[in-house]
């Protein structure tokens, strides 16, 4: 009787250009922030939409800029991973190969 509806938690929608931001990058960023905000992600061809909802008394505005930076960092990490995957695989293969790290075939 006369009860007011409980305050709905603060929420904001962020959009990311689909061409330059992969869903994976946004998800990884969301995972890092998952102790502070929840993220509902809707992917699209032109843009991805991400609704951030703050937990408890987390200040949502303060999180937005950091979240955007984190998404960009994840996009960068994705690029670095892709670029360095072949050399990384080669190095680990060399590290664990039975012939040892030095290739005895490098004998003249």
């Amino acid at each position: 009787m006369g009860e007011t509806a409980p305050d709905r938690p603060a929420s904001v929608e962020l959009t990311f250009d689909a061409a330059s931001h992969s869903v994976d990058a946004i998800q990884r960023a969301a995972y890092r922030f998952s102790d502070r905000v929840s993220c509902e992600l809707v992917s699209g061809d032109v843009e991805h939409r991400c609704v951030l909802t703050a937990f408890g008394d987390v200040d949502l505005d303060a999180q937005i800029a950091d979240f955007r930076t984190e998404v960009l960092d994840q996009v960068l990490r994705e690029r670095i991973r892709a670029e360095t995957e072949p050399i990384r695989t080669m190095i680990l293969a060399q590290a664990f190969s039975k012939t040892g790290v030095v290739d005895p075939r490098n004998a003249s």
Partner: protein
Amino acid sequence: MITLRGRSAAFELDAPLTRAVWMLVDRDTLTPQRHGRAFLVNEEEPPDGFALYFVADPECAPVGKPWIALPPLLRYLVAGDVVSASETGEYVRVLWRHKSPINSVLLTERCDHYCVMCSQPPKEREDAWLLDNARELIRLLPSSTAGIGFTGGEPTIYGDRLIELLRLCSNLLPDADVHVLSNGRRFADFGFASAWARVGNPRMMVGIPIYGAEPTLHDYVVQAEGAFDETVQGIVNLGEVRARTEIRVVIHKQTAPALPEIAEFIARNLPFVEQVALMGLEMVGFARANMDEVWIDPVDYRTELAEAVSLLARRGVKTMIYNHQLCLIDRELWPFTVRSISDWKNEYHPECAKCSVIERCGGFFFSAKYRHSDHIAAIPSGSARRRDVLPV
């Protein structure tokens, strides 16, 4: 400063010499052995039977025997020393000084590097006779010989012939610590590194210089593109075959600022080497010619040197400091210093006469007369604690 070669004062041979390398013998060291021995005359009636006689004063030359009067500056030679003489007798070069604690045998003056501070500037000409002389020298030395060094130029230029020489040395001089200097690049060929290890001499070690933590600086110092990459590969291969390896870093104006980075690189990438030697510059050869590019007063890199030693030694890499006067480096580094300047190069500054640690300090290269620190200062007695001067 001792001279190592010269022109004979006079000589009289009945025929060209059939061998180049001779060990000197006198009355006190006389044995029935004649092969490869030359008699050092200092009396009236030298014994018969020697193929060659050396004399200090041409007036005392033995009659009726083939003789060479030593170059005036080589008159310090004594029995047990080994020399090479030119075929005609005109030139004499000292190969081995019996009394010296450290003898280095020059194998070649050819080199594929051209270090800006090189103390033995390379020469292009064919000089394999130096290798031949080295072989003969090893055959003459007593089997109890305690140590021998091989230098160049770049000794690995000889490839398999160097390996053979080292095997000979290992067999004939089993008690000798053998120290070979090389730029290490040949060892990037794993086959060569394996052959090296197969000499199987536990007393053999190779000393290889590194002058940068990355290619640009190192390649510049040695004046050869691709040197760093190959040298590092070589050191890795030597580690793989468990060959004893030392890394040397000559500290000069170009390398001093990068010394901590170099130390970190070695500690992290090449920690398996037996030791790291941080070396002071010898002001001869190209170092003298390039003085403006390479001279730096050691007090100006005290901090970098201390940092480099810390980065290496605390993580378990054996570290030594060579060719630095004690007054120029931090006292806490004294335990890492080694009296390494071989005796014929030792000189002292007037300031040193009053110094309480002169016995422990390595002094200077003779070449320091061309340039040395402005900060040489005697350490007052009583100010050095006993543990400051404990040897490594």
